């Protein structure tokens, strides 16, 4: 049905998509996780309240989050060129994807950390824990199921975003679908791309759910 060349293109598209999603997701987590924790603990009445930091950091996060992704991709081209040395191709596409992923992840981490019962923080304080110990030994382990669920959500969103970076020659499945399926009018390629994306999202979601269940000790049956 699909020609071997098309199959090859599909495989290459999948590899490119995975490459972009995994790398931008990983870097996004490296940035988003500490920022999310920082946002959560600096809020009013929290562990280390810091109004100024919280407001400034919150504003930066909101700014990136409210810019439509396709505009973000184009708007930060100079920055992309500075970081990646080029503004086209898969590697270049990782830069805007990361810039979009980090604040997204920061917000989901912030929410997960805020969900942790205040009583646990108080108990740890009563034991003489330092703020850093409370973050490492109480907040992060207790928020882990929520963080895993949030990261899964972020990965799915990134797969969606990665389809748009074809605009800067990013490659990947989305690019393949637009160029072959739409512009060359090959509906079977379009369909194949959509099916591969659906399966990919399904796998990511199921894996994420499975891990979240594994790390969640809150609803065990005795």
């Amino acid at each position, binding site marked *: 049905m699909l020609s071997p060349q098309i199959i090859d293109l599909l495989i290459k598209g999948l590899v490119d998509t995975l490459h972009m999603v995994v790398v931008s997701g990983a870097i996004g987590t490296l940035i988003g996780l500490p920022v999310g924790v920082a946002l959560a603990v600096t809020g009013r009445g929290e562990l280390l309240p810091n109004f100024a930091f919280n407001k400034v950091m919150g504003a930066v996060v909101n700014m990136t989050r409210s810019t439509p992704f396709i505009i973000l991709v184009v708007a930060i081209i100079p920055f992309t060129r500075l970081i990646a040395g080029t503004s086209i191709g898969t590697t270049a596409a990782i830069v805007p994807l990361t810039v979009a992923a980090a604040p997204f992840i920061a917000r989901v981490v912030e929410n997960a950390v805020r969900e942790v019962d205040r009583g646990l923080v108080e108990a740890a*304080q009563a034991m003489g824990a330092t703020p850093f110990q409370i973050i490492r030994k109480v907040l992060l382990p207790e928020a882990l199921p929520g963080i895993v669920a949030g990261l899964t959500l972020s990965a799915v969103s990134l797969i969606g975003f990665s389809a748009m970076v074809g605009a800067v020659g990013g490659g990947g499945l989305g690019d393949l679908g637009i160029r072959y399926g739409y512009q060359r009018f090959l509906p079977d390629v379009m369909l194949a791309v959509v099916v591969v994306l659906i399966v990919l999202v399904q796998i990511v979601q199921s894996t994420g759910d499975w891990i979240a269940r594994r790390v969640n000790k809150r609803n065990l049956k005795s």
Partner: protein
Amino acid sequence: MITLTNIHKTYPARGGGAQVRALADIDLSIGRGEIFGIIGRSGAGKSTLLRTINLLETPSSGSVQVDGVEMTALSAAELRRARHSIGMIFQHFNLLSSRTVFDNVALPLELAGTPKAEIRTIVEPLLDLVGLADKRDRYPAELSGGQKQRVGIARALASKPKVLLSDEATSALDPETTTQILHLLADINRRLGLTIVLITHEIAVIKEICHKVAVMEDGLVIEQGPVFDIFAHPKHPTTRSFVDPVINRGIPDSLRDRLSPQPGPGSNPVLRITFTGEKATTPVISAISRRLGLDLNIWHGQIDEIQGAPFGTLVVEALGDDATVGAAVDLVKENNLGVEVLGHALPANH
């Protein structure tokens, strides 16, 4: 062991409201090895007061001394070290859901940087002490409320504290489990000589295990002293409202209807005689009858035990003239028993 002097706590005004007084003029002295109860209704400030002892709440003014150390003068690092010797347990247990029973109890030791091998030698005996050795590798979600609180107690004891603060530790438990947990606390108090400060809104908890009690209302300590004295002679109306249901100093409703504050035609005075401690066995009733020839009609009697000492009340109608009744009152007082005139009983069918 713990001395609170002139503690005040006010929360600053926010959003145009007036500032809120949480605690005022609090003076408490808690001896080594005591179980000290603080009772009050919700919002009375007892939780805030408890938290000033380990400075989870910083008092606006006043002094907090624990084991001779002025807590309010400590730096952040010194305060964290001081908190290692003050354990705390909570109404909702506050266990980490992500950690097993063993790891929850080990947490305070991990925080203090105790080596792993040593942690085992401390945690395992504690799990035996609270009767949870077989639940070592379970998660809190797999435990009952009583078991969770046992984990909480073991965790609080892990750093070998001198003081244990209990924040409504039995309020989320059923009556039977409450009794078990209270016995465990009393046992720990005896065996380890641990000073326990507990807050509760249940007078039964105070009656069961406390040596001393402070009654709080509206941010003030309105009455404090040995539990026996407070139960036997509650002064403040709030204290009375706490104490009355459990030691039933009252009289049956059917008789209450006949009671009038003023003497009336054919009325007789009604006396309440209270027997406390070793005096509870004095044969004062028969002495009155024999020596004064005064008949006493017993309306209501009750004997109770508070902290292992007997405590009784007897409500009697004295069938005699004022002079004889006055002599009877004097006789009761001579025997160092408590007596008060409750009112005057009108004739039954008038």
